[in-house]
């Protein structure tokens, strides 16, 4: 089956996608972008456009390739990811999106520093933002970059490293040239391609079985070495506490992911932020239902044995492209592979602009320069930061090649849920909350996640660990969420009660509350 892969067709479709997106990015770009333009696309996107872009930003290679592969091999446990990733959007819709849009400007730290002591809070928020972006970026670059190299028929370490570098360079170009506007269009194009591609694949698979989903499941059971067990939970996570920990991190992490939060600033009003999330939920929900068909379809038509064979390029992650190869031949596979490539590019671009904005806006302009920079200069710094982040991501991605880095995505969600979400919710809903609480919660949440992950089986003590020969595996769960999330929330309360409120606390808290709930004084869309 594998020798039917046609790298030339794959390469042509990839090149077409890159050429098309570059054309769009150069068209929407402006040399002298203002801060509002570079960071937030002038807040001029409509709710539906932003909703599609959110789906493009959120549905990463881990969602598309990872979940299809996980369902194909481990069955039901893969589906649990889909559900967590989707339900999480209700937290964003009900508690975060509109209030954040009304109170902030460009970054998560804007919301927090509205009424807290800005320098320390911006430092801490920027630290957690950069940590989440960096873990996520490395996971995308190494995991997916390697897969793309193999789909292109490039073998060997140098070729794989070169692919990671190309992904990194394209990311830098998209973001530097197009800013948030260009990044958004890349995400919109990718989301449309992804949903159409996944929809067509699912239709073909269902059509093959006369639209009888149950028959697909029967074939999946027949081909799996685990038999019936692929239809119920427990194959991948036999420990139920592991399940719960992962489930918590997924459902509470999304609304604290900085690259997701930043997208809410690209629309003109809180109401449009709400519409964006409604659109995003419909697209993301439909997508995850389709991944169920693709995952079990790949289990039935490709089979877990092929996917787990060490000679299969990409292994488990190749489930969706190989399914396309089986049902539609090399051309359909090229299209699906190109969509996977588009997915990676759109997500890494979103992460890069978020990290750059956080550094330039929060650390450089507010902390280092104490708020006295010219806006032009801030954008220059942001562009330079994109290059630095791109280079670091390329190096990190290459170093992590071949390592088992899947835990990095879980870690990113755990940090978002433990370090970011508590502070966001407290500052929006709890009047008494203060700087001490924010610092305790963000730094404590971040530290507990990092410490627990280092002590977890993902890093040492097991055959599949990052360092299989070392053994300091003291924490038994692969995701720290169940411990670190309560720590993050509790530290916010403890820190607040232990420290005094800011002198202008009452007025600032009132101003923030009125603005959050009514939109009075919120950043408006700017003209061209």
């Amino acid at each position, binding site marked *: 089956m594998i020798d039917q892969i046609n790298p030339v067709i794959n390469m042509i479709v990839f090149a077409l996608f890159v050429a098309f997106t570059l054309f769009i990015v150069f068209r929407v770009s402006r040399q002298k972008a203002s801060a509002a333009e570079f960071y937030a696309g002038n807040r001029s996107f409509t709710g539906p456009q932003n909703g599609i872009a959110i789906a493009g930003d959120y549905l990463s290679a881990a969602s598309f390739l990872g979940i299809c592969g996980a369902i194909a091999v481990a069955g*039901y446990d893969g*589906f*649990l990811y*889909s*559900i*967590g990733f*989707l*339900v999480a959007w*209700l*937290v964003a*819709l*009900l508690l975060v999106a509109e209030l954040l849009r009304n109170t902030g400007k460009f970054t998560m730290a804007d919301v927090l*520093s*509205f009424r807290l002591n800005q320098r320390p809070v911006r430092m801490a928020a920027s630290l957690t933002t950069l940590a989440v972006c960096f873990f996520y970026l490395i996971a995308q670059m190494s995991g997916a970059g390697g897969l793309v190299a193999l789909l292109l028929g490039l073998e060997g370490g140098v070729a794989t490293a070169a692919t990671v570098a190309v992904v990194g360079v394209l990311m830098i170009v998209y973001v530097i040239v197009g800013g948030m506007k260009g990044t958004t269009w890349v995400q919109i194009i990718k989301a449309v391609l992804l949903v159409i591609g996944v929809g067509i694949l699912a239709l073909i698979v269902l059509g093959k079985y006369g639209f009888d*989903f*149950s*028959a697909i*499941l*029967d074939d999946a*059971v027949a081909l799996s070495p685990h038999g*019936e067990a692929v*239809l*119920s*939970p*427990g194959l991948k996570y036999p*420990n*139920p*506490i*592991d*399940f*719960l920990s992962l*489930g918590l991190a997924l*459902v509470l992490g999304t609304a604290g992911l900085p690259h997701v939060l930043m997208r809410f600033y690209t629309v003109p009003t809180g*109401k449009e932020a*709400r*519409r964006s*999330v*409604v659109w995003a*939920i*419909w697209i993301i*929900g439909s997508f*995850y*239902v389709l991944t*169920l068909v693709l995952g079990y379809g790949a289990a039935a038509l490709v089979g877990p044995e092929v996917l787990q064979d060490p000679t299969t390029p990409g292994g488990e992650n190749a489930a969706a492209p190989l399914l396309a190869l089986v049902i539609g031949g090399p051309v359909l596979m090229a299209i699906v592979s190109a969509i996977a490539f588009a997915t990676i590019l759109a997500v890494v671009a979103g992460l890069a602009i978020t990290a750059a904005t956080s550094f330039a806006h929060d650390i450089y302009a507010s902390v280092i320069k104490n*708020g006295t920079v010219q806006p032009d200069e801030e954008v220059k710094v942001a562009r330079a930061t994109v290059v630095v982040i791109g280079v670091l991501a390329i190096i990190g991605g290459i170093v992590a090649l071949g390592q088992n880095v899947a835990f990095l995505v879980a870690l990113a969600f755990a940090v978002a849920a433990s370090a970011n979400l508590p502070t966001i919710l407290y500052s929006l809903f709890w009047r008494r909350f203060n700087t001490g609480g924010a610092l305790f919660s963000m730094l404590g949440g971040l530290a507990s996640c990092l410490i627990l992950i280092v002590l977890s089986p993902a890093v040492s003590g097991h055959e599949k660990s990052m360092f299989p020969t070392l053994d300091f595996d003291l924490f038994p769960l692969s995701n720290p969420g169940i411990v670190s999330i309560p720590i993050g929330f509790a530290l916010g309360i403890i820190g607040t009660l232990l420290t005094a409120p800011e002198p*202008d606390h*009452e*007025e*600032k808290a*009132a*101003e923030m*509350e*009125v*603005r959050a*709930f*009514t*939109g*009075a*004084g919120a*950043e408006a869309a700017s003209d061209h």
Partner: protein
Amino acid sequence: MTDPGTVGARSVAVQRSEDFQRLRRSFLSFIVPMTALFLLWYLLYVILAGFAPGLYAIPVLGSINVGLLMGLGQVVTTFVITMLYRSWADKRYDPHAEAIRHEMETGEILDETQEGRR
């Protein structure tokens, strides 16, 4: 640090007004139960998946089992809550919030230079 008539002072007045308190209460009385509902329903789903995989394995329609239907149930409730919130917010919340925003913003023009500090 701020004199009366500034954004801060007016915010405190608006925040304490009966009208704003009603807006905030109506928001929280929709959001809090809804959030509790979907989080508990999701936790139930995850806990059952972890501790009662046998329950999820019971077939219902052909090979489609309780587990798959529970998962799809989560998708359906997510869509339903999304639409409920959207229609509530559009019809009930927005007009009220808009009125208070108007009052707040036309009471005095907001001091734009304050934005630069943040």
